[in-house]
């Protein structure tokens, strides 16, 4: 941790300690640019993925407002809450927000985007679509969607916070104009993030201040955090191919086995275009939090799209967007695989899961001997 103990200088200072910190940031920026296949000055550091999303989206909106304009921003229904809440706020101040629907696998179809661009022709400021979904793991056809946006001369941003560890981050290959990444999802420090912004795309800053990041983001840089995110991305890049292939195999093994061994179960998300670490399944007739707590007792950690485990008492907006009933959204369980996951662990999980789902269905007022009651 030399950037806490030795090179703790303020990168904006002219003395040598400050200079050392400044150099370290420059070096980190170059390393990241190499991974993203962009120019170093196209990388802007931020305090989190959420901040970067706010910067990219509001930056475009503020630019329009400076010109006394409003306009249309296109996004889609399964975005992370961070994006959805920005959109709700922009709507309040007069922007036209279009939320594209997704198909039953959670994929945004090119035709949907094309229609929205056509309908709002001349007013669209930005298209922002997530790279991969955090709940159901669906990977969007980013390159194709970006090229649709470009045909209409519209800027394309992608939220790549989820899946940066496993997916290609080459911005040229993806043909995106802006891309948000965060640190904690690639095992870097929490409270770090960055925005790739293609040269020539002008947006207004979100945080005004001392001219850091060439005026794009005020505030003294988080030197250690920036170096950490560079290192974490390098490690992820190095292990990406091998680890993705390993997890994909385990993931498919787990999905197929659950669907086969436990009756009346449905996979949520796309079977192929899916994050290697994501398994999300709905169990008819049972509530997710009950499954989750029974699994926890066996040392298995999972999460659910059930309202019962959320603060809002609303079931997952993602599951509702792909057309799941409330009952199926409440009965969904997500397993996240990771570096330590093995086949033995998966077998142990499925063995317990089968028993737990069976027992809870026996207790359930919605199971009805397998003739599931799922009226709204």
């Amino acid at each position, binding site marked *: 941790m030399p950037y806490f103990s030795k090179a703790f200088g303020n990168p904006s200072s002219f003395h040598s300690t400050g200079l050392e910190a400044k150099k370290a940031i420059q070096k980190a920026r170059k390393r990241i640019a190499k991974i993203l296949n962009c120019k170093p000055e196209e990388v802007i550091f931020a305090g989190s993925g959420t901040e970067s999303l706010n910067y990219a989206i509001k930056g475009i909106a503020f630019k329009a407002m400076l010109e006394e304009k409003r306009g249309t921003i296109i996004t889609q229904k399964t975005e992370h809450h961070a994006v959805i809440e920005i959109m709700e706020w922009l709507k309040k101040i007069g922007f036209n927000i279009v939320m594209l629907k997704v198909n039953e696998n959670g994929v945004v179809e090119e035709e949907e985007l094309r229609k929205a661009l056509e309908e709002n022709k001349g007013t669209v400021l930005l298209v922002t679509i997530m790279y991969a979904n955090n709940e159901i793991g669906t990977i969007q056809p980013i390159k194709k969607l970006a090229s649709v946006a470009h045909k209409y001369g519209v800027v394309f941003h992608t939220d790549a916070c989820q899946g940066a560890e496993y997916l290609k981050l080459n911005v040229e290959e993806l043909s995106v104009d802006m891309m948000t990444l965060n640190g904690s999802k690639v095992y870097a420090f929490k409270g770090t993030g960055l925005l790739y912004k293609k040269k020539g795309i002008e947006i207004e800053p979100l945080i005004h201040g001392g001219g850091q990041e060439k005026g794009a983001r005020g505030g003294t840089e988080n030197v250690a955090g920036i170096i950490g995110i560079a290192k974490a991305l390098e490690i992820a890049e190095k292990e990406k191919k091998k680890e993705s292939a390993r997890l994909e195999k385990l993931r498919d093994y787990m999905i197929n086995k659950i669907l086969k061994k436990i009756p009346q179960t449905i996979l949520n998300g796309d079977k192929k275009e899916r994050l290697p670490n994501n398994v999300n399944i709905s169990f008819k*007739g*049972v*509530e997710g*939090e*009950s499954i989750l*707590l*029974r699994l926890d*007792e066996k040392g298995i950690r999972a999460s659910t799209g*059930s*309202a*019962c*485990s959320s*603060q809002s*008492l609303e*079931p997952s907006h993602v599951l509702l967007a792909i057309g799941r*009933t*409330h*009952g199926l959204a*409440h009965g969904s369980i997500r397993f996240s695989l990771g570096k330590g996951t093995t086949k033995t662990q998966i077998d142990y999980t499925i063995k317990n899961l089968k028993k737990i789902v069976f*027992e809870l269905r*026996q*207790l*359930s*007022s*919605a*199971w*009805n*001997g*397998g003739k599931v*009651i*799922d*009226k*709204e």
Partner: protein
Amino acid sequence: MQIEEQNWFYSPTVKEHFFKPKHAWVKDKSPTGYDAYGFYGSMKCGDKMEMWIKVKKDKIVDLKWKTFGCASAIASTSMLATKIKKKSGMDIKKDLQITPMDIIKRLGGLPSIKIHCSVMGDKALQSAIYDYKVKNKREDLKVEKPEEEKH
């Protein structure tokens, strides 16, 4: 009696009832031979409770319940069922003596977000007694049909 907001984990009593629910009906087919049936909640809200009661001399002498619900709903109803069965059974002529707050207290508290789950059993019970009232033309019973859950 609320567990701190940040504290997601349930009390040991909740866990005990959740893992071993009392007087629950854990079979595919509905139970037979009960005098009245009540239900409350909807799939939309993620909670659906059913209850069957046996009444003798205006006392609930037996009951069974089933739920599509979370740990709070399961534990609260299990606790409620235990209370109803205690002694010689609950008197249906009197007001419902067991309040949701009472149940929560006996469970050692619930996270505040989960309080609403604890009324499920209570409302299903009310619905069952109302069913008994209608079936047996017992206009003397004060119980009314529970209002639908608003969401």
